[in-house]
Each structure stands twice: as C-alpha cells, then as structure tokens.
C-alpha cells in the first residue's frame, strides 16, 4: 500500500475514532467527581485488614489475582526475551574490551550502588505502608545494579551478576507467590485468600496479613527479572557478534 493511501486511511480512521472518543469524553462524569463506589469499598476493606497503603491492599489482597497475572506477564516476557535474544547459529561472543571511566563518575557509581540497593529494599519493605512496593523497589534495585556497567565496565557487572541464580530466583518467586495463593485453597478458604495470618498492628511493617509476603515475592521477582532482561539486551549490545558480514 502506498504511503499516500495509508495516510488517507489513517486520516479517516483517526477522525472517526477521534469523534467517538471526544463524544464519549463529553459524557464522562466531570473530572474530579466524588462518586467512586468501588474505591470507597476498597479503602474500607483495606482498613479492615490493617493495611495502611490501600493501593498495596488492592494489589496484593483484594485483586491479588490480577497481580498474579501481572507478574506472570513479566515472567513470560523475560522467558520470551531469553529465547528471542539467544545466541543464534551464526553468532559468537566476543569479550568486550575494558572501559576506562573518569574517576569521579566511577566513585559516584560505587557510592550510589549501595545507596540505591538500600533505597530499593526500603521501597519494597514499606510497600504496604507508604507509596511503593515490590514492583517499584524491584526495578530500582535492579536498575541500580547496572550503574556498575555505566560507571565501571561490563566485566564488573558480570562479576556481581550470576545470571543463572537470577533466572532461578525469578522463577522461584513466581512459585512462592503461587504457593502462598494455594495455601488458601488447601486451608479451605479460597485461592489467594488473606485469612491465614494475623493482620497485625496498623501501620507497622508486619501488618496486613500476607500482603508483605506477596509484596516481597513480587519484589524479588521484579528485581531478578529486570536483571535478566537487561542482561540479555546488554549481551546483544556488547558481546554477541554475527559471524559473517553481508
């Protein structure tokens, strides 16, 4: 199809969809309205289970089944990337040459890596209390690890990154989440039912029943998944070379 024809199609389709969307926007309840029945119920349910962060309660208790799907998406995507970015038949690996980085940058990186890891851990651990949680903290911790690549070089990163262990952790965290869910079925309540553990004291680290456990499982999963994901992309960008040209 020619570019011109495609633009015409796009114009017609886009205009139609724009009209539909605009008409719908005018019918939507005004921005900032007060009616949120599900939201109100969610807040009540969260307080009843002593979870200070309602969003964590929705994610890891009320709609924990959605989060199972979400973490499976991440798990599947990592598995998919490992498969798609594997070394093909006509490729080989080349050791990257060591990089030289200005000293202040190197120092900054070495200083910030532990700070970022602590920060990531803090965000995961306080997930059920303050904003944050397994996902956010996991990404921070995993991304921070790559400061070693940015500030030093790829070999430094590879030294602290046993890939097999991270892959296994990724999968085992998914297992842990599922096993926690299945515990509910075995106990005769329901899948992912948060009824087995005491709800604890409101606004403390151990409150919310199994919310902190699920949160930790997601945190581990996300951190190791992001490490594996980035490792595959880094391998492509740095190590893997195609054999013949043309």
């Amino acid at each position, binding site marked *: 199809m020619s570019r011109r024809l495609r633009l015409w199609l796009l114009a017609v389709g886009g205009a139609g969809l724009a009209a539909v969307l605009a008409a719908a926007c005018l019918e939507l309840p005004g921005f900032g309205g007060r009616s949120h029945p599900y939201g109100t119920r969610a807040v009540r349910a969260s307080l009843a289970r002593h979870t200070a962060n309602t969003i964590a309660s929705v994610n890891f208790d009320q709609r924990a089944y959605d989060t199972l799907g979400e973490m499976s998406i991440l798990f599947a995507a990592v598995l998919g990337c490992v498969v798609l970015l594997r070394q093909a038949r006509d490729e080989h690996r080349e050791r990257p040459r060591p990089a030289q980085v*200005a000293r202040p*940058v190197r120092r*900054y990186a070495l200083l910030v890596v532990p700070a970022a890891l602590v920060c990531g851990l803090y965000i995961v651990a306080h997930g059920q209390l303050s904003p944050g949680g397994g996902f956010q903290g996991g990404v921070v911790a995993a991304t921070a690890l790559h400061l070693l690549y*940015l500030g030093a070089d*790829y070999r430094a990163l590879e030294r602290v990154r046993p890939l097999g262990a991270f892959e296994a952790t990724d999968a085992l965290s998914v297992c842990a989440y599922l096993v926690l869910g299945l515990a509910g079925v075995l106990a005769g309540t329901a899948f992912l039912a948060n009824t087995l553990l005491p709800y604890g004291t409101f606004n403390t680290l151990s409150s919310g029943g199994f919310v902190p456990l699920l949160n930790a499982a997601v945190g581990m999963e996300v951190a190791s998944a992001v490490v594996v994901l980035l490792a595959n992309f880094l391998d492509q960008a740095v190590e893997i070379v195609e054999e013949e040209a043309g």
Partner: protein
Amino acid sequence: MNGWILAATVELGGGGAAALWGVTTGPTARRVVAQNLTTAALCPALLLLAQGYGRPAYVDLALLLALLGPVGTLVFARLLHEDLEGRRPSAWGLTYAVAGVGAAVVIALCAVTGPGRAMVKLLVIGALLIGGNLIASRALSGGFRGVLGG
C-alpha cells in the same frame, strides 16, 4: 491553598517548558544536557508538592528521582558517546543555577520540617540530587573521554 504549591507550579511550568524545549531542539549533545537538567529542575518541584499537600510520604518520589535521574543521564552519556565526541556540551552556568534552586528548596524545607528523620531524608535527597547532577554534567562534558569498547 498555599505557597508551596504555587512555587511547585512555577517550577514545573518554567523548568518543564525549558526542559521540553531543550530536549526537542538542537544537536543531540545539547539535548542530553537538557535531559539531565530536567531531573534537577523537577526533583525540587516534587519536594515542594509533598510539602504543599502535607504528605511527607510523597517525598519518596523525589528520592527516587534524585537517585535514578542521573542514572538515566549516565545511560545516555555512556551509550551515545560517539555523538557527544567532539562537541562537548557544557552548560555549567545553568547547571549551577539549577543546583542552587535545588539547594534553596531543600534548605527551605529543612527549615520548615525541623530536625528529625524527615530532615535527614531531605538532606540525603539534596546531596544525591546535587551530587548526581554535577557528576552527570561532568560525565557529559568529557568524563568518558578515552572510553574503549564495553
């Protein structure tokens, strides 16, 4: 209604628009500098917002931005070093000005919060923000000179 939110609006409007203009025009090297300054300009806005809404919990966002913003810039500095070669961008005047704004905001907030854990957190954010920014600027203006392979 309070002045904190007003200040945040001004900071967001001014800093944001400038950052947007900087990152969409000009040579690549200039754009990376603008990307770096976005972090520096918006992190104080997040701190002001947390204060304005009366929600100390929102400070975590500023912490994360102060931590990850420079990391993002280092990504570009490392992976775009061919583009940065030759025309080393530096906007030291602007960098110091933005860092100054950040410092001023942190100091003002410290004065309001008073001593305690919250103040320590603010100071950590301030240190990370300003330190990270200066380092990232340094990296952009030649920190990776002589980088090989990897």
